């Protein structure tokens, strides 16, 4: 057993030191999953993000934010009357997020230095977590853009500074020095804003500068921001693909498995042609050890690819796992099936070129008919029938069931059995033909 672990560890180490293998096993499948996710998502990445907007506030501040949001080219905004309607639209996948300007959004600047900030709420579909950051950043920016308008309103300003002084005076835990500095800051701000010739402030420039410096000092203070954007996520749903990423990551996963085949079939062939395989046989280990070591390394890297890709879908693209245990079972059997296929390819190929060709090229064909490039339901019927011959199809089916389809257990048995069969067959034929090339 120690020998097997030693062998497997060596192979994994070699895998991670080979840039080509790392690329085809880990990086490429991820890129593919993300790319296809965006392509099938229809958004196409560069076009505007669909937003639902609800304005519950009658304040001119809210009006300003709503207006800027509508004009912003990053967003395609649909206005709804109630937050329920807007949230429903998110849930239906028609928009990425709903932005709510709540009735608590007041014109006054009182809240600003009081600690609560300008309240903005957003409800987002978890599958669009990637866009959440963008939306959040944009809302901050839009809120800040409203400041110059407030700062040029004399009445608002006096109220603001008076409020600020009161807050400072009443604040607990300030040292006298801090209190003095804060009061000085307010006084300086007051002096600065009152010195602006208000009639000339039609162009935003100096006031914007003031707003920006405010924004900077706010962010450098770290804990406090004058804009409070609260983002809430809808609970994930089950039963259907929540996003195109639910479809694209299982596909990326089979590409990762294909990468494993290429890497391990290649490594067997390389070790055979360079003589290291023969040298290993000098050690007091059996052929079974040797093959088990290779198989284990391939199995583990296949498992790693699977876990990595589905984790990425969950963490970064809002997918959620319907049946974690069954997904693990699907991972294990897929990894087993593809380790078997790696053995088969290794056994049948004599040269490095052949192994690379079969591992990456031949696998491409199986991937294409098996739904590795386009989802099965996009395929014409004859191709869909052919896909039964491809191990890729069975991996996709085995993984999607417990991942997002939430299929009943009974329906998950068939693909799992097929994968187990592929593994047994691959190991059987592959090991036999590798043995025949190893000599005694």
């Amino acid at each position: 057993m120690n020998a097997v672990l030693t062998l497997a560890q060596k192979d994994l180490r070699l895998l991670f030191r080979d840039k080509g293998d790392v690329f085809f096993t880990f990086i490429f499948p991820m890129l593919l999953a993300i790319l296809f996710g965006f392509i099938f998502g229809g958004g196409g990445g560069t076009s505007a993000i669909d937003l639902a907007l609800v304005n519950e506030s009658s304040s001119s501040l809210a009006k300003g934010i709503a207006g800027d949001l509508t004009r912003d080219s990053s967003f395609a905004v649909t206005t709804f009357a109630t937050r329920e309607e807007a949230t429903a639209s998110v849930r239906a996948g028609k928009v990425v997020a709903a932005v709510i300007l709540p009735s608590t959004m007041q014109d006054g600047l009182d809240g600003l230095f009081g600690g609560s900030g300008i309240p903005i709420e957003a409800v987002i579909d978890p599958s669009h977590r990637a866009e959440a950051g963008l939306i959040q950043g944009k809302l901050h920016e839009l809120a800040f853009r409203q400041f110059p308008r407030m700062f040029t309103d004399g009445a608002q300003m006096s109220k603001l500074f008076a409020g600020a002084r009161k807050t400072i005076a009443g604040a607990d835990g300030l040292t006298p020095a801090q209190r003095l500095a804060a009061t000085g800051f307010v006084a300086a701000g007051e002096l600065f804003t009152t010195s602006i010739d208000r009639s000339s402030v039609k162009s935003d420039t100096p006031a914007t500068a003031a707003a920006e410096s405010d924004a900077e000092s706010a962010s450098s203070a770290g804990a406090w921001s004058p804009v409070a954007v609260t983002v809430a996520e809808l609970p994930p749903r089950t039963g259907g693909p929540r996003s195109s990423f639910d479809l694209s990551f299982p596909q990326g996963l089979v590409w990762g498995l294909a990468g494993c085949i290429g890497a391990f079939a290649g490594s067997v062939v390389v070790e055979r042609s360079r003589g290291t395989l023969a040298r290993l046989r000098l050690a007091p280990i059996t052929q079974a050890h040797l093959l088990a070591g290779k198989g284990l390394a391939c199995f583990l890297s296949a498992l790693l690819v699977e876990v990595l890709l589905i984790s990425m879908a969950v963490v970064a693209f809002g997918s959620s796992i319907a049946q974690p245990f069954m997904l693990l079972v699907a991972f294990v059997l897929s990894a087993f099936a593809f380790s078997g296929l790696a053995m088969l390819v290794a056994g049948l190929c004599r040269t490095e070129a052949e192994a690379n060709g079969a591992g990456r090229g031949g696998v491409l064909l199986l991937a294409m008919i098996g739904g590795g490039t386009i989802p099965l339901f996009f395929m014409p019927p004859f191709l869909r029938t052919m896909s039964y011959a491809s191990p890729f199809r069975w991996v996709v089916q085995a993984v999607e069931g417990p991942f997002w389809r939430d299929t009943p257990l009974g329906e998950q048995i068939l693909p799992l059995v097929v994968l187990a069969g592929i593994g047994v067959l691959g190991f059987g034929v592959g090991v036999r033909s590798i043995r025949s090339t190893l000599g005694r």
Partner: protein
Amino acid sequence: MLTLGDIRKRFGATTAVDGLSLQVSAGEVFGLLGPNGAGKSTSLAIATGLLAADSGSVDLLGLGSPTNASVRSHLGLAPQEITLYAELTARENLLFFARLYGVANARRRVEELLAIVELESRANDRIGTFSGGMKRRLNLAAALVHDPKVLLLDEPTAGVDPQSRNRILELVRTLARAGKTIVYTTHYMEEAAKICDRVGIVDHGRMLDVGTVAQLVTRHGGHSAVTVSRGDQDERVLTADPVAEVTRQFAVGGVTGVRVESPDLEAVFLALTGRSLRE
């Protein structure tokens, strides 16, 4: 220690080993000298038990055939090719082989070996970046991880600069002094003459003769050339007995100088095969 008895091996139409026998005694450095394609590597592969001979017998330490893993574990082979992992460091390579052999205290053993082959300073470098000589030394170190009694070194100086070659030869001498039994294949007769206690001359898969260098030269080297100078006059005489010839010349008198050229393994090989070792 190691006995090969009438080994035969064919690869298709090629007869690689053709009835070769040899017997290596404990603690001796045995040289297999022969040109490329003579069947040296094939013989070693059969001696390890990994390549099956068509016929013949192999015995290691009186324990039987090394096809048996426990018998084989007394054997270390440094193959003619560098069979290490270029992407692993020197230390990782040795540690891997040590663990594969189940060496107790593998880490300490690896540090010892790195010191023996003088590669401590490069221990953490991937061996893909090593010079030919450094790879050779590490290839040899990997054969030593489990401290085997019998060492098979297949052309351990192939593709190595003269300085590294001397280091490797010195290393082999050190191992011999430490009591290892060593089979050393080469097509360089100088190496065989320098470090081997006995040499077997191989060609076309056959063992043509075995003996100490002196014995082989006496048997097959032919005549020595004795050049006798008398003033400006040089006389060159070929003789089987140079001592007698020199004595005779001195008896004649007037000798101002004598030079004796002894035959070497090159001459032995030429005499045995009708060809030069260097082709």
